[in-house]
């Protein structure tokens, strides 16, 4: 991993020197010591709860309910994982999450790219107003729209269906904003040259503009996938059970099913729900962070 791994900022000589100078300017050695202390403290703060749920997930049931707590399971067991994956139709929830995340992400990425292309490189009357309409949607909290949307989708008979979850979430504001900025940064001469070569608008998008925009498109895609995988409120309201419930919704139902929470399977399911997104993150974090630092937060 390079120095730029997490910030998406390309490392170069001058920035390295600037940082050294800065470390010196704010107290030199003291600053470094504080830096290492902060690193250790933060690592512990982040890792401890994660470690805690992982060891809980592989403890035998009586070992979970002991004081003082065991910080190492003896012996470790897979019972929690077995229970979690059989008790609550875990794989149905998992399948629903996969289907909904896949369809929704593809829809959002396609709609976002097409909208951004029209709003950046095509000329038509009212372009600015339409751009503002798209972007202003970012400022409308979900909770204000769910009541009316719930009534509408229920009337259509779309509760507990994939389309009832997917379609109301498919509009794209953030991605349009991100991709539009990217498309606007493609040098005018290149677009000009492609047009002179006789490329029509769609060919221009596929052959010239998109190939030059891969990093931003990847960032937009990852942010979208992670957001949709984690989406909670709307799938929660739309789903009564494992027919369409996503993994986060399933976790809630797992919690309900036991009168007194049986923490072993619950923590096992939690770990299983966290894993896919953490793996994606570890593999592609540089792109994701680049997208987040270049735009807003909401998907």
């Amino acid at each position, binding site marked *: 991993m390079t120095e730029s791994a997490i910030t998406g900022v390309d490392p170069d000589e001058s920035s390295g020197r600037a940082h050294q100078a800065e470390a010196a*300017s704010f107290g030199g050695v003291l600053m470094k010591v504080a830096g290492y202390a902060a690193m250790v403290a933060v690592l512990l703060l982040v890792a401890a709860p994660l470690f805690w749920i992982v060891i809980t997930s592989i403890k035998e049931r009586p070992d979970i309910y002991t004081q003082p707590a065991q910080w190492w399971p003896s012996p470790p067991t897979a019972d929690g994982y077995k229970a979690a994956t059989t008790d609550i139709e875990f794989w149905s929830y998992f399948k629903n999450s996969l289907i909904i995340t896949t369809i929704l992400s593809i829809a959002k990425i396609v709609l976002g790219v097409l909208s951004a292309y029209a709003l950046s490189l095509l000329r038509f009357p009212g372009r600015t107003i339409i751009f503002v309409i798209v972007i202003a949607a970012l400022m409308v909290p979900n909770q204000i729209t769910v009541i009316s949307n719930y*009534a509408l989708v229920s009337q259509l008979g779309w509760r507990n269906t994939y389309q009832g979850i997917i379609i109301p979430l498919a509009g794209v504001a953030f991605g349009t904003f991100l991709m539009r900025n990217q498309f606007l940064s493609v040098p005018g001469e290149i677009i000009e040259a492609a047009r002179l070569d006789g490329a029509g608008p769609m060919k221009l998008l596929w052959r010239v503009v998109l190939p030059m925009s891969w990093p931003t498109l990847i960032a937009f895609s990852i942010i979208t996938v992670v957001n949709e995988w984690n989406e909670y409120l709307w799938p929660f309201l739309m789903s009564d059970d494992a027919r369409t419930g996503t993994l986060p919704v399933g976790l809630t139902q797992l919690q309900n099913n036991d009168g007194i929470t049986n923490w072993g399977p619950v923590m096992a399911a939690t770990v299983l729900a966290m894993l896919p997104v953490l793996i994606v993150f570890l593999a592609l974090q540089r792109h994701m962070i680049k997208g987040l630092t270049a735009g807003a937060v909401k998907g």
Partner: protein
Amino acid sequence: MTAPPEISAPAPRSGPPAPVGKPPRRSGRPYGEWLLAAGLLLPNLLLLVLFTYRPLVDNIRLSFTDWNISAPVARYIGVQNYVAWFHDGNSHQVLLNTLIFTVATVGISMALGLALAMLLDQRLRGRNLVRSAIFAPFVISGAAVGLAFQFVFDPNFGMIRDLADRFLGVSVPDFYQQPGWALVMVTTTYIWKNLGYTFVIYLAALQGRRADLDEAAEIDGASAWRRFSKVLLPQLRPTTFFLSITVLLNSVQVFDIINVMTRGGPQGYGTTTLVYQVYRETFVNNKAGYGATIATIMFLILLVITVVQVRVMDRGMNS
């Protein structure tokens, strides 16, 4: 409402300034281009109008009705819902909870994010690992984090209790049953999950700023605090502005963590925020008209706060 282009995040050194790609007008085919643009934009616009703007307006209409969400008709009752909300004893607690939760999460995650970003903006061994670690919780679903932290905070067998016993020899409060401590629990959980975001944005801003200004100040003999407050903070002002709006909007909207950890309790409304009250009234108590009223009030509050933020920032930039 603000137009996000104005508050775009810092994108440090992300290439040369963007030349605006204005295509030259091609002779003879303007309408073709208009049609194409309409075709490309229409699906997305339709979805946004139907599922974002229509319900926003419809929500205001519903706020003046007595309505059960599964009923076909909503009965108009004027401002009764609004009057009821202001007289509802729970509303005051809900407002207070929202205020405490929002101020704490926004304030702490921004201050801590900046402090960490400054400390880690140096050449340190292993800092890439630590950066990834701080950011990782941000990508985990709120429901999973909420569930995990419920057991971390478990008053009998949780991690916090065990650590307090072991190292401090003190007993922990009952995070499940005492409203104040339950609020501390959800607030802490939210900060744990979201700190990585403010940290990463501040770090990118720090790495993109002009370090020579700071060096100049040092040569002038300014103290560390003066360099921080007179040089660094003003440099970071756009980033701080961007974060203050996005973090606040996200924080006010928290639903998953509260729903999973406390369901708005304990003791009735212990951790119910405005957003959670909207959900409870609409979907649990079957008073959707009243829920719409609270949603409208929340939207107005957010609108006022955002406008004030923009004003304050404008003044700051101009002075």
